[in-house]
């Protein structure tokens, strides 16, 4: 067993026994890591508030068989503003939940780490609608996992768009020929909204029109392709 250094984001914490917690971290170099923080729930713990969700930390970990052990932790950014506003908090929980679902234990993914960190930065930065930032994160996460929705050409046959219907299972807009029963006709602003979420650059560039429908599609799309419900999504004030 060996000590190793990592940079990570605290995704969630779970009580363990009397005073400890199991902390789930999304790290830059080791993917998802679950580690025990001993004594962290005691008021005089040397970890203090360093292992709270949303915090970007520098860690020194002791590698264990199943669970690692946190030996040292320093805050890089606490993303404090997320904790101080309810809408940002709820949107931030969407980011943490989805990252937790997608990340694999001990499997390096710098892009996933950077995407999650970018979303938390955007939420803590205070500009932009928290719900839109969460949507942007989710759709970019789906793209990263290989499910980038097609927003102009038909997702099935590639025929150039624009097309009027969106199919979650077929992976985006579909033409009249390819569409299956599940394809829904989308409103005028919806595709620009989705396209805005995927635009290069900081989150989010999406226009406000089309957001209602677009947002619902993002959730359904991500839940379908990751095959998991997103529990936090419904709690984001919209």
């Amino acid at each position, binding site marked *: 067993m060996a000590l190793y250094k990592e940079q990570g984001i605290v995704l969630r914490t779970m009580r*363990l026994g*009397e005073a400890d917690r199991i902390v789930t971290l999304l790290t830059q170099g080791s993917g998802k890591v679950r580690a025990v923080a001993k004594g962290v729930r005691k008021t005089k713990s040397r970890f*203090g508030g*360093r292992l709270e969700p949303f915090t970007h930390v520098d860690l020194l970990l002791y590698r264990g068989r199943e669970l690692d052990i946190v030996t040292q932790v320093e805050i890089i950014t606490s993303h404090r503003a997320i904790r101080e506003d*309810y809408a940002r*908090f709820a949107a931030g929980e969407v980011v943490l*939940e989805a990252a937790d679902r997608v990340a694999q234990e001990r499997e390096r993914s710098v892009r996933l780490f950077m995407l999650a960190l970018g979303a938390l930065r955007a939420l803590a930065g205070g500009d932009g609608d928290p719900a839109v930032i969460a949507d942007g994160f989710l759709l970019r996460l789906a793209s990263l996992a290989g499910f980038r929705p097609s927003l102009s050409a038909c997702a099935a046959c590639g025929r150039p768009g624009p097309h009027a219907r969106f199919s979650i299972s077929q992976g985006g807009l579909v033409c009249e020929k390819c569409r299956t029963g599940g394809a829904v006709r989308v409103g005028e602003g919806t595709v620009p909204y989705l396209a805005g979420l995927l635009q290069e650059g900081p989150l989010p560039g999406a226009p406000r029109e089309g957001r209602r429908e677009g947002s619902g599609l993002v959730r359904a799309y991500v839940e379908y392709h990751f095959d998991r419900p997103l*529990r936090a999504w419904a709690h984001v004030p919209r």
Partner: protein
Amino acid sequence: MFEGPVQDLIEALRRLPGIGQKSAQRLAFHLLKAPADEARALAESILAAKERVAICRECFNVAEGERCRYCLDARRDPALVCVVEEPADIIAVERTQEFRGRYHVLGGHISPIDGVGPDDLRIRELLARVERGELKEVIVATNPTVEGEATAIYLANLLKPLGARVTRIASGIPVGGDLEYADEVTLGRALEGRREI
């Protein structure tokens, strides 16, 4: 894997909060080694607690009748209420002997990631207490964790427009602690919450 009743007991213990596989096994074998009447006494006290302990209609603390001892105590200020996550937190506040008001137990904290929203807690009931005009000050004593803070902020947004005074317990450096080891969030809060001496 063990067989039959032993395995059942381990499974049952494992469902308790904070108990993992190893602890469950340890507890199960401890109980098996203990005298029969000790095991019986434990089983009976669990049953008795389940049968006799009710939830206070006013504040949702555990109670032996319709109302808990704090809601029944006429010497306690009914206009001052301390909001906590769990009944165990009341015990912690009571130990200070500093508080002479009443309580409100939320039954947890808001945690969207676990699917727990405001409607899953006793927030509507707190709102009703404020709307009835009974409360002058609501002290929010949820845990100083991310979820506890978010719950506090949610409550403040909800209750302040109704004219209630909403306060939050201070957080900062623990007594006997060491400034040098404090993290920046805790120390930042402590500075914000400073007071004249």
